């Protein structure tokens, strides 16, 4: 699953782009035709372009200005049910002819897989189902290095001004990314979309007792520059989050309710995505294998994967195989609706695709999430907290401690100890453990603070009990 900060997809095309877009579409079409001429039964080309401006500053001075653009092309061929995927950045016509021949040749090394097929042409998105997803902002093309540096400097300065305990900084980074994706398939699909993403992250550092440092960070990222939070607000929030960790300590091992902040909650959702993916199902690598249509979470939990969220960081008008995007309800008031599938996973599981194919240039399509979110509840996070007697409130999770086959979940955590509905003191160097099954079934409160800043996002939620391991 891609990190939303590096996402750059959009659906509307600006005028300045359309000339070159038409040329790139023609290039992709030529490669598809060439591969078919050489004997490929299926040929699919993804062409991506990327332009970035990254400005990083530290202690008020520039540390890095990176400005560049790139493009690359990936080709999947299927011949007699045998697949190969090749990629190149050399788009000269002669080189592409040679490239297509190599791809068709490489397919000879793989073995027939009857499920390796493209979508049925009748299922492909038509020009009529290309919604405007509001993910392209022409203003981003006008941002120059000095402006990006100024935003980063303002963000860091706001953090340092906010609290005298901010003694150092890992800096601030402003990134502006513009990209385009063009998909052409031998099944008759041609589509393109372009988009933008701007982000600003501020990372202050404070000194704690015993020579320990405490870093914190805060960030915002949006498809439109004008919707990005101000550098002042981002910097102040980063400072607040840094100093509130001062004096953090371990707690004794206990079993208590655990409240997940939106940041920690989104990591739990990432974990969930891995086990509702059809790829995991046909590989028998998910604990949810026999759990479709049964409760896998408390009735407060509804999870959707929605590529059509206006301005969403994970929004896409069509999927990686050219199917029209649609919203999928994955967990409906606790019940597991079914695995998310691309065409291949769907065929393996004997069902249609859910239009959940993602695709990069260097591999075959695979199941990916778009905007994968826990649907918010009715209460405010403050009320959820106030309703909690003793609990561990998690702001940050660390590590790879999840086994999708068994659902065992064990991760490093930091946050706050909650006593009588209030933050009592900061906590670090503990772990939280349960199975993901127990965690989801134990959700007993979902707040209303969902923010679509990242493509996998969650509001604050509370779990009845987990093991917190400390001293």
């Amino acid at each position, binding site marked *: 699953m891609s990190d939303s900060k590096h996402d750059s997809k959009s659906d509307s095309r600006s005028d300045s782009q359309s000339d070159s877009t038409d040329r790139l579409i023609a290039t992709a079409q030529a490669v598809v035709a060439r591969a078919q001429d050489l004997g490929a039964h299926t040929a699919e080309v993804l062409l991506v372009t990327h332009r970035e401006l990254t400005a990083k500053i530290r202690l008020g001075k520039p540390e890095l200005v990176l400005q560049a653009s790139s493009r690359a092309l990936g080709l999947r061929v299927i011949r007699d049910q045998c697949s190969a995927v090749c990629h190149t950045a050399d788009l000269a016509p002669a080189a592409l002819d040679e490239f297509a021949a190599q791809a068709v040749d490489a397919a000879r090394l*793989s073995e027939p897989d009857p499920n390796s097929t493209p979508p049925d042409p009748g299922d492909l998105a038509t020009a009529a189902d290309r919604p405007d997803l509001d993910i392209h902002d022409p203003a981003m093309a006008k941002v120059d290095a000095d402006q990006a540096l100024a935003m980063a400097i303002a963000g860091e300065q706001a953090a340092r001004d906010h609290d005298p305990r901010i003694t150092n900084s890992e800096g601030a980074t402003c990134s502006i990314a513009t990209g385009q994706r063009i998909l052409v398939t031998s099944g008759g699909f041609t589509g393109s979309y372009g988009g933008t993403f701007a982000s600003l992250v501020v990372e202050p550092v404070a000194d704690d007792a015993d020579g320990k440092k405490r870093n914190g960070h805060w960030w915002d990222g949006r498809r439109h520059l004008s919707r990005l939070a101000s550098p002042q607000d981002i910097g102040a929030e980063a400072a607040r989050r840094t100093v509130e960790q001062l004096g953090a300590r371990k707690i004794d091992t206990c079993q208590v309710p655990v409240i997940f902040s939106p940041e920690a909650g989104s990591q739990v959702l990432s974990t969930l995505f891995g086990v509702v993916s059809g790829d995991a199902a046909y590989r028998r690598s998910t604990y949810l294998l026999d759990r479709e249509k049964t409760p896998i979470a408390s009735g407060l939990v509804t999870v959707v994967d929605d590529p059509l969220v206006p301005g969403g960081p994970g929004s896409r008008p069509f999927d990686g195989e050219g199917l029209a995007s649609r919203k999928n309800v994955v967990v409906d008031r606790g019940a597991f609706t079914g695995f998310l599938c691309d065409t291949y996973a769907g065929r393996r599981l004997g069902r249609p695709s859910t239009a959940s194919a993602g695709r990069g240039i260097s591999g075959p399509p695979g199941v990916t999430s778009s905007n994968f979110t826990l649907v918010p509840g009715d209460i405010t996070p403050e009320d959820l907290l106030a309703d909690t007697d003793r609990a561990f409130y998690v702001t940050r999770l660390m590590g790879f401690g999840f086994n999708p086959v*068994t659902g065992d979940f064990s991760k490093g955590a930091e946050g706050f100890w909650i006593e009588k509905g209030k933050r009592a003191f900061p906590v670090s160097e503990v*772990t939280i453990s349960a199975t993901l099954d127990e965690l989801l079934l134990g959700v007993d409160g979902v707040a209303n603070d969902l923010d679509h800043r990242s493509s996998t996002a969650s509001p604050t939620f509370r779990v009845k009990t987990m093991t917190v391991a400390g001293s």
Partner: protein
Amino acid sequence: MNDSASRTSVFGPGADAHQCDRLLGEALSRGGDYADLFFEHNQSGSFTFEDGRVKNVGRGVSLGMGARVVDGEATGYAYAQDLEEAPMREAARTAGTIATGGGATEAVAVSASSRPDYYPVDTPTLWAPDDHRLALIRRADAAARAYDPAVSKVQVTLGEGLRRVLVATSDGRLVTDEQPLFRFFVRVVAEQGAKRQSGSSGGGGRQGLSYFEGQRPEEIGREAARIALAMMDAQEAPAGEMTVVLGPGDSGILLHEAVGHGLEADFNRKATSNYSGRVGEAVASDLCTVVDDATVTGARGSINVDDEGLQGRRTVLIEKGILRGYMHDRLSARLMDAHPTGNGRREDFTVTPYPRMTNTFLLAGQSDPEEIIRSVDRGIYACHFSGGQVNISNGDFVFSLTESYLIEGGKITAPLRGVNLIGNGPDVLTRVSMVGTDFAAADGIWTCGKEGQSVPVGVGTPTLKLDGITVGGTQA
């Protein structure tokens, strides 16, 4: 794409010495302390074997040149994918806009520099006959399936690459390197009734197919199956602080997280690491000597030259518990007035280098590994891991166990379910109370992420005993 011709001329005339001189001159035309050009040609391939068949074949090539100008602490960076004069000059000029000091820099004249050869490979695996490689994959698959009837799914992947780089620097160096690499990996799912478990194992490095003469693919397949079966009946792990014994090899991931990242000089230059300003102080028990060693023949993390054109080398980081130094890139070495250590690495030509580890090892000690286990009345023995992470500032690090057992009365007993360990870097190495004689480098599977960039690394350690680290189980 088995094109073995023109091994040294993949960059064409765009990378000849005079062209580099001109481009470096352009880069420094507005001033700056230092500039370099990083040419990279990366050829990659993969085989995915699943459900008894070769499911997909992947091939790819990327090519480009990154231009960098450093002025004080500021870096300007741009890159070009076309190695034609105009786009390369544009990249050099764009990178140069970071400088504010004005031009009048002396003309640059690069000349070829020599380099060592820590990975003498006649034929990169990418160029070996396809049927040889596919035969190795099938052997691993067959061995995993034959291990036990409970094995229900086997996936074997072979990822391969040949990365060719040319670095030209404004201090006159022009260095080339060819970096072959492969990673062979087996994942298994085993099922007994309603119970299911997974296991994985792998290997590789900067070697040719002769690697498989020492490490047979059957052994990798069987090891993955063994772990899945061994963990099938795993019980819930304890929660809380206890003694942990780490097995040799892969446990080096602890070292990588607990101290490795904290000793990368960028964090120390900025005084954002727990280890900042502590050279000469005790940061570990006196049983601990830690090195970063780029010179191990054929190892995954080895480099002849780093991505700034400096030779890879062996650097002592901690000697008998005393912090001796940091891992540097050119920028940190210059700003901290230290010797460069050849640790400037980057994922590819689209990004700037940072101080990064190569192969990071804790060296062998005096204790018999069996005696170490016997010395523990109640604790955990850990031998396989899925990965780790560290927060540089406060030093908290985690690593996740995928194969571990209880130790009871000096004996390894019940298998434990996947569990996370958490500790604090500057604290945990002071708790090392026994170090085994059985040093082993992990086989070549590890990849390190930092600043959004992935680079291949090696880890290694002997058996270690840690007196007290928090185990994140569920049995409070």
